[in-house]
């Protein structure tokens, strides 16, 4: 099992999860974070920290696409180990659905 970051993170990118992760398994893209599934220890501490409910256990049905995406992008994005401010317009995207097309595959600053 692992936890995965899903669609609601896109363009919100709060990093409250990064502050609590004991194994630094979050990786940063330009407008989203992902979890490295082989580094995640399944401890669950990040799940309730996310203000936009973007972190889910992969045991939930229907997350296969997101699990693959987390694994793929964690392999190319830089690790992020310290919390930072979210994008200034994050609140505007909080309740937006169907954000997948807005996902940037560009790496973040890490």
């Amino acid at each position, binding site marked *: *099992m692992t936890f995965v970051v899903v669609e609601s993170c896109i363009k919100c990118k709060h990093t409250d999860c990064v502050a*609590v992760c004991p*194994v630094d398994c979050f990786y940063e893209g330009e407008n989203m974070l992902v979890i490295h*599934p082989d580094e*995640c*220890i399944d401890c669950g*501490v990040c799940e*309730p920290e996310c203000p936009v409910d973007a972190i889910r256990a992969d045991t939930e049905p229907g997350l296969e696409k997101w*699990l693959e995406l987390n694994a793929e992008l964690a392999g190319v994005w830089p690790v992020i180990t310290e919390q930072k401010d979210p994008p200034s317009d994050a609140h505007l995207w909080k309740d937006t659905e169907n954000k997948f097309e807005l996902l940037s595959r560009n790496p973040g600053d890490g």
Partner: protein
Amino acid sequence: MSVVEKSQPNFASDQEVRWCPGCGDFAILSQMKKIMPTLGVKPENVAFVSGIGCSSRFPYYLETYGMHGIHGRAPAIATGLKRMRPDLQVWVVTGDGDALSIGCTHLLHALRRNVDIKILLFNNRIYGLTKGQFSPTTPPGLVTSSTPGGTAHEPLHPLSIALASNATFVARSVDTNARHLGDVLRRAAAHRGAAFVEIYQNCHIFNDGAFDHAKDAAVREDHTVELVHGQPLVFGKERNKGIRLVGTDLEVVELDNGRSAGDLLVHDEASQTSAIAQMLAGMEHPRMPEVLGVLRDIDLPTHNDLMPDDTVSVAARADKINQLLETGETWTVGG
């Protein structure tokens, strides 16, 4: 989906893992699930035995045989199991309270007998399951729910106790240092005889930060020395510090200050005497960097080697017990 298969090896059980979110125990469990499929042993030939405490929930979460035993008694239970089923790979999972207070003598004797079991001591320096009382490894001065004025006494040092018990394999690692912990667990599994591994484990509810010096990526290289057999003890973010033996003590020296690696203590995990290993075990933060890795790995006959009567059938053994009871200094108490 290859990703799912890789992150869910077949040693994972179907039980819901119940530790506090963020607990270091998750990291240790994660490494164990990763290394078990690489050891060449089938799940049905492995047994995990535990005592009482947060760490002792470990056997539930692996798809092997397991026993959640009584407080402190896991080494005794594991000794009996290995005695009767030498074909099993037997692990003990315990904590600082379970192993060093409630069951301390069981630990000592399992080690001195060199029972072929692998003992993992999750050291968080606190009683977590019972909500935060001081344990045998709590450092002096720590305010806990049972020491409101601060803990008064010096702690026990797990590695020193293992070495004093003549354990044939003694190592230390850190819960969240995945690479290092995986390597140490594999070494412990490969050892023939009693293997003792202390794992620094963060209890972020009742003793958060107890091992930050050894865990925090920004500082850990300056506060820990990774032991490598046959190599000098060099450490530091810049790899510019080392450990030197001076008389009967160890000291930290700066390598770019007239000292070279040739002046340093060279690690010998196969030394038959545990004297130097004891000195390494005594290195304690903040006075000294703390050692990680394998302090000692020597080959001595195991408990089963020394008492090789397991070929006797259970029935024959029962007869022998009866004969034993009925001979010699026995008597009947009259009415």
